């Protein structure tokens, strides 16, 4: 079992507007991307963040060996319970997923 971060060259999170959080996973090779794409389902991602799997969108972007993951933020950016306004430190639970 390896952690997701061991497969990725870039693993980042960022707001896609204040209502959504988006994750870019970029891989060194197409094989790595395919390996992760086949194993990383919406349930795994939803479980890591405590969100509804139905809200999680996973889109491969083969042009740069990448996978994009997007779901609505649990707390809208800047709302009282939010703790990461830009959303750029939300990638850690994803990086720890074991595949």
């Amino acid at each position, binding site marked *: 079992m390896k952690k997701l971060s061991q497969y990725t060259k*870039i693993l980042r999170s*960022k*707001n*896609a*507007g*204040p*209502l*959504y959080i*988006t994750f*870019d996973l*970029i891989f060194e090779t197409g094989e790595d991307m395919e390996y992760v794409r086949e194993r990383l389902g919406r349930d795994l991602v939803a479980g890591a963040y405590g969100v509804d799997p139905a*809200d999680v*969108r996973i*889109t491969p*972007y083969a*042009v*740069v060996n*990448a996978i*994009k993951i*997007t779901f*609505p933020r649990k707390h*809208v*950016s*800047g*709302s*009282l*319970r939010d*703790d990461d*306004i*830009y959303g750029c430190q939300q990638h850690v639970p994803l990086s720890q997923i074991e595949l």
Partner: protein
Amino acid sequence: MLKIVALNGLLGYGYSEEALQIAFSEHVDYLGVDAGSTDPGPYYLGSGRSFTDRGAVKRDLSLALPLALRHRAPFIIGTAGGAGSREHVEWLLGILREVAAEQDLHFSLGTVYSDVTAEYALGKLEAGRLRPMSPSFGTDREAILGSSRIVSQIGIAPIIELLRRGTDVIVCGRACDTAIYAAPCVYRGYDMGLAFHMAKIMECGAMCSEPLAAADVMQGYMYRDRFELRPASPSRRCTTARVAAHTLYEQTDPYMIYEPDGVCDLSNSVFVQKDARTVSVSGSVFREAEQKTLKLEGVKLSGYRTVCPAVINDPDTIRNVDAIIQTVTDFVRKTAGGSLPEGSYELFFRKSGGPESSMCVIIDAVGKTQAAADTVCALARSRMLHTDYPGRKSTAGNLAFPFSPSDIHVGEVYEFSVFHLAEVDSLLETSEICVSEV
């Protein structure tokens, strides 16, 4: 061919003067810069302040403005003042006029204000023409009415109108980042798919280059069948990997860029390394939407905040921190109860770290007034400093305060109240367009 230059990723973030000179060493058709974002959160739209620094914005303008005017390259500035409301536009115009006066510069100025009233948003809601940007973000009549400010995010239409009128400098209220760079391309008859794709990559300045920098100059070359990107600084280069990867950035979907006019489809985009520092892109396609939309962004005042940052180093204290926080929360509820009933304030303990290192706790109090927030924060801070737990040895105090005073006024707290798409009959219907001479 059109040459379009992006000053940097955000006005006030700085750029290399040498790079800008290099960009202008050949003919430049248009200069653009994005001056705002919702990334820093709702406070700035609410307060009318900018998250960028006045001195830094002035520096960025005082080098670029004379160069653009001398080369007769219209200078397009999007989302003035950080959030793009009327107050933010006025703030930027103040700086612009100051630079013009100091350097004796004269030009025709086009301005687009894009504020809308709560009545406008409510009218859309009642007509069934307002939909939230995310299903989890509700559409709340009260929230719309209680908004301090609402702006619409304009697309290319008002900018094209001002280009048509021949203005030298165009300052926009809240605008799509892409509109700054796509508008001149579309105005001059270039393909909309290529225009919006190039704009999406350029709006971050040299973020799509290696080494990456939001704080530097990017050059875009628009042709009939492709566009090319090359950073102005000789030390940077565009690579297909970086440019294609930047297409992903801050987007919900890697293949679609949604715009007021329609959608830019990147499914068939092709990225080619033209030379060591230049990437060529083709194949991006624009599909015009039947129903045009404008995004509305609004914020409401939610209270006032006082915070107290503190550190716990003792692993025993850290292991008991949740019990301590419970004791403090109960104490504040009982003690403040008379003047501050439950529900009239919010108290959060923002923890990071753990027993293996040390823990930072930010006591975060939000009240209906600054005084209420002060009271809640002070009660929580003093109680937390001296809360006992079983086996406690460090009975002098639980918290290390890095500052005196320990409690800090953060001031007004705003939250997003409107983040919706409004269906419009005209993409100019929220724009107030003005032309004047400076």
